């Protein structure tokens, strides 16, 4: 017996909350991927990353509105289109921001921190003025609403599985792009030695711009996933940026595997504990644990073994 639950009930609760945490896990992984790519590539900490996510969420919302009003026949597949559009919108905004702002600040890390923070405020106000201060939510197509019953008590939400599957695909795609494609080789070369990358013939500024766009685009997809667990409002992105930083630092900034493991740990811990205590208490406990582990392993969970 644990509290008022039997062992059987307790494991079921753990499993259910675990599956319920899948979407949160996906949002974390996608957000952290984007943030880590941008940080690794150009040493820019993108404080506006949450707003790029929210842009994706708004795009998803407008897609759902549009399809239910004008193309109800295609409503069941709108989510795929919404995700693609969310990526494009955030990618495009990312390219624009890199071109208009970030590229002037590369050699000044503190300034990029301030500038992207300013950008996040600007974007929030922009969303408020254009989309309204009211929080909006999407309607999901019917097939995504159900749940799969594993046992009497354990249910797995279908949208969770869906988002999870999508996250796996995107993560694998990012892995392949970074480690198997010619373009990924250029990105890694720039990450390791920018000056030398230029001197072997790589157009480093172009690589920067596209990488920044890609990181933001992935945040846009995270925004699509986010619409399933939260309502979209101008400032909703802010709540996630801190968690995402936590994920990146905890995972060890240079490792894809570390990012995934750390997103999993943090999202699961939060989602499970939220069942037993208040959300903010769960957050405090997670934070304390992460800080504790980081004191023992300041380099994060995973690191690469190479001579520098």
């Amino acid at each position: 017996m644990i509290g008022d639950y039997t062992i059987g009930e307790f494991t079921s609760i753990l499993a259910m909350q675990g599956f319920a945490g899948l979407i949160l896990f996906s949002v974390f992984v996608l957000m952290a991927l984007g943030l880590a790519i941008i940080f690794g590539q150009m040493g820019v900490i993108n404080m506006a990353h949450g707003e790029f996510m929210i842009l994706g969420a708004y795009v998803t919302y407008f897609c759902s509105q549009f399809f239910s009003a004008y193309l109800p026949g295609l409503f069941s597949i709108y989510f795929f289109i919404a995700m693609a559009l969310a990526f494009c919108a955030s990618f495009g905004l990312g390219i624009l921001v890199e071109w208009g702002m970030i590229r002037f600040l590369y050699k000044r890390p503190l300034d990029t921190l301030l500038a992207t923070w300013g950008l996040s405020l600007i974007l929030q106000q922009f969303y408020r003025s254009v989309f309204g201060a009211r929080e909006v939510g999407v309607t999901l197509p019917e097939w995504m609403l159900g749940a799969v019953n594993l046992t009497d008590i354990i249910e797995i939400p279908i949208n969770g599985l869906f988002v999870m599957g999508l996250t796996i695909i995107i993560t694998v795609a990012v892995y392949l792009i970074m480690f198997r494609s010619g373009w990924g080789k250029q990105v890694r070369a720039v990450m390791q030695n920018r000056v030398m990358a230029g001197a072997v013939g790589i157009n480093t500024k172009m690589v920067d711009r596209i990488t920044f766009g890609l990181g933001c685009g992935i945040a846009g997809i995270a925004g699509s996933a986010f619409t399933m667990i939260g309502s979209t409002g101008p400032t909703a992105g802010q709540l996630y940026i801190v968690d995402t930083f936590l994920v990146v630092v905890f995972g060890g900034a240079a490792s894809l595997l570390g990012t995934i493991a750390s997103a999993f740990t943090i999202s699961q811990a939060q989602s499970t504990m939220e069942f037993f205590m208040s959300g903010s208490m769960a957050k405090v406990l997670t934070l304390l644990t992460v800080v504790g582990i980081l004191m023992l392993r300041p380099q994060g969970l995973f690191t690469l073994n190479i001579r520098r």
Partner: protein
Amino acid sequence: MLAVDNLTVAYGESEVIHNLSFEVKPNEIVAIMGRNGMGKTTLMKSLMGIVPTREGHVQVGEASIDGMESYQRVSNGLAYVPQGRMIFPSMTVKENIETGLTSTGDKTVPGDIYELFPVLLEMKDRRGGNLSGGQQQQLAIARALATKPKVLLLDEPTEGIQPSIIKEMARTLCRIRDEKGLSIVVSEQVLSFALDMADRVLVIEKGSFVHESPREGIDEKKVAGFLSV
């Protein structure tokens, strides 16, 4: 093949290279000799567009490369092996060489590069950072050759490498020149190495050339005098 005219380079207020002019013919190996801090690296970096040029013109073949970014200079035929090698440590040997393919658009590493450096083929899946210093030097040269250059710039390739391997490197560089017909500019402090391979020797002192001589009939004592403190 390479024509440098009146090149002046400065870090902020302090001018380090003063009105340098020199030419390198096709198939020629030129050694630029000078003690520590005389401006060899600065000269190389400015040719690669890493350090901005204050004045002067540089031509590769027929093309003027003034004001270009590094990657554009590479497309125009310059390749660079920096002092300290600067390979990409966490990429494999093969990937390191492949970064040089960006400007040519080739998909695979030309086989003759592995012929020149068989050890790199053996180690192609190792991380670059885990190679020995001498192997990293070969890797840096291979990476530069992958860009199919017209002019190869090498900055103190012998630094930290034992004498027997230095001899071998001189042979390899001569072989590269003969097989690929490119021009080589190498900065050096080791006179024997320069005499092993160079067709012409220039001595740089505080950013200006103070002596020039073809290898035949070079006054070794005089050059050695410039190099000793």
